[in-house]
């Protein structure tokens, strides 16, 4: 953190307000839109410079959709998006000129995100040359230093992806991303397909890069214990909406939303006296969402009030979307 410019530290790199990513469901002979799948609905989120922000939730809650929307990979339906203070959405279209290549995404599956027909040299050089990050003469040295930065020997650049393990491939993806000198990296479940000891290596690498380059990270994950060791702030998502946010330490030690509490209680721990608790009920599907609070059918604190949609309680550092937040 010490390498960060003190002025830029704490300023939001990316900020979204009331972001909506809706997918139309078309029916009938003429393909008329009958309703929308609200995969991301009314989401406000902020990632500050040099900060690691985690986004957690069960599979299918819309966290990857949100990540892809922020990277400009999915059409946004509404809301506001600011990149380093400049508005990056005009008429719901992402302004590439504001973004340039300052936002990079690393994907979950290390096998499908590297072209098997290209050597590591080719994989890393294309984006460097396309975006004029370095000249043709320097490209080899740049790649060598990128590989070193992610803990790989430079002579690996002549190999093809198939000769690498999942962890090594993920390192190559990270090298490709940091080559663009991004301000924000969106990491979509990047360690969930790796073994534990390799997971820890990648996490260490990310922390090191954050320190060296002053990167901001949006870390999308479903593993709460991993998020705890890694992130500064945390957003909990349920069915397309952020239900709770705050500093990771606060949220995990004193969850306010019943859903966060249930998520934490379901994680197995090494302590045999504390068995995981079961969250009852099925996740409603996006096409048949209950009116009002989307968590009401599984909630322990449910009341008649919950048939209305709860608003995010405005507070400086802690936000909860619930009528009956748990006491600290």
């Amino acid at each position, binding site marked *: 953190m010490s390498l960060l410019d003190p002025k830029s530290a704490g300023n939001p790199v990316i900020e979204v307000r009331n972001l909506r990513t809706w997918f139309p469901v078309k029916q009938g002979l003429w393909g008329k839109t009958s309703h929308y799948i609200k995969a991301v609905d009314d989401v406000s989120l902020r990632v500050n410079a040099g900060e690691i922000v985690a986004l957690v939730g*069960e599979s299918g809650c819309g966290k990857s959709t949100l990540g892809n929307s922020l990277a400009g990979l999915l059409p946004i339906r509404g809301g506001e998006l600011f990149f380093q203070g400049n508005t990056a959405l005009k008429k719901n279209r992402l302004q590439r000129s504001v973004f340039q290549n300052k936002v990079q995404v690393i994907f979950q599956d290390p096998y499908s995100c590297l072209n098997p027909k290209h050597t590591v040299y080719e994989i890393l050089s294309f984006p460097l040359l396309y975006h004029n990050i370095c000249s043709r003469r320097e490209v080899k040295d740049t790649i060598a230093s990128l590989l070193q930065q992610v803990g790989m020997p430079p002579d690996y650049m002549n190999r093809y992806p198939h000769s690498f393990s999942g*962890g090594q491939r993920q390192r190559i993806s990270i090298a490709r991303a940091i080559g663009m000198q991004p301000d924000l990296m969106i990491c979509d479940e990047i360690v969930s397909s790796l073994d534990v*000891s390799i997971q820890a290596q990648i996490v260490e690498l990310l922390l090191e890069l954050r320190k060296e380059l002053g990167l901001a990270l949006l870390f999308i994950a*479903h593993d709460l214990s991993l998020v705890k060791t890694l992130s500064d702030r945390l957003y909990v998502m349920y069915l397309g909406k952020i239900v709770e946010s705050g500093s990771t330490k606060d949220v995990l030690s004193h969850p306010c939303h019943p859903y966060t509490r249930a998520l934490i209680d*379901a994680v197995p*721990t*090494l302590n045999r006296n504390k068995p995981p608790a079961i969250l009852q009920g099925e996740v409603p599907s996006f096409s048949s969402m209950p009116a009002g609070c989307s968590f009401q059918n599984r909630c322990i604190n449910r009341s008649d009030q919950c048939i209305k949609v709860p608003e995010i309680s405005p507070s400086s550092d802690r936000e909860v979307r619930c009528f009956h937040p748990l006491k600290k």
Partner: protein
Amino acid sequence: MEPSIEEEKPDCLLRVSDLSIGIDRPDGVLALTDRVSFHLLEGEILGLIGESGCGKSISSLAIMGMLPEPGGTLLTGEVSFRDRNLFQLDESGLNQLRGQNISMIFQEPFAAMNPLIRVGEQMLEVFDYHSVDFDKHQKINDLLNEVGLTDHARILKSYPHELSGGMLQRIMIAMSLLLDPDLLIADEPTTALDVTVQAQIMNLIVRLKRERKMSVLLISHNISLMAQYTDRISVMYAGQIVESNDTASFLDDPQHPYSKGLMHAIPSLDQREGKILSIPGQVPEPGKYPPGCRFKSRCRDATDECLAEPPEKNLKNHGRYRCHY
């Protein structure tokens, strides 16, 4: 290698002794596992931990009599189920055992289901090969409830691609329990699932263990999951079992440096201190195992002595580990 004290236990359901499996390569047989031994009592959950490629899945396939074809070879050892040597059974004997007595949950539900047949028909297919005396449809509905699936009519009418990975995994689990097996081999059963669903399914497995004395071989790389649900743990590294002990003692005091490394590598919600330590280096590939201790290149305490084959040491409580120190 098993101590004699365990040989005499009468309720031993499965015994794997000195199992070495190799695979044929143009340049000779490549050994994937090296004299793997473990046993499973009735109504017990044994956890097998190890990184990918360490040989845990191939060992479990061998128990089902399903060595990869072509090329899978049994080098040494035997697997006995209720004192019957599985490798001496013919195909029809094996078929009777599989499903009825031993059942398996596979890791990848999309690969394990037939994409052209509706889920309901695939579940019913089980009964074409095994006769049962209960109501088949009732049983299917009960189990789907138990794994937390509602809307059965729609699910049973769907093709696999119409369901999510988590749903299919739960259907696989229900399917593996249709015939009330005595032994369930669960290869990373909940890795693809969310923690909330994972808790639900593990509770079902533990309940079946308690009510019906079902034994479970749980294969996973998640130590926290093991800590919560297993009775005993065996740790596998590079084709060998490096440590086995009952779960409580293992968690209290892991002996092998690799087990210790694994314990430090997992992030935990409990810990105050947020730091996790990685194990440096990579698992050696089969065929490239170094002589002597296979973990020495990644071990913080390795010495010259580790060039020799490490001895197997017994702990006071029947636990064993394989290390010079």
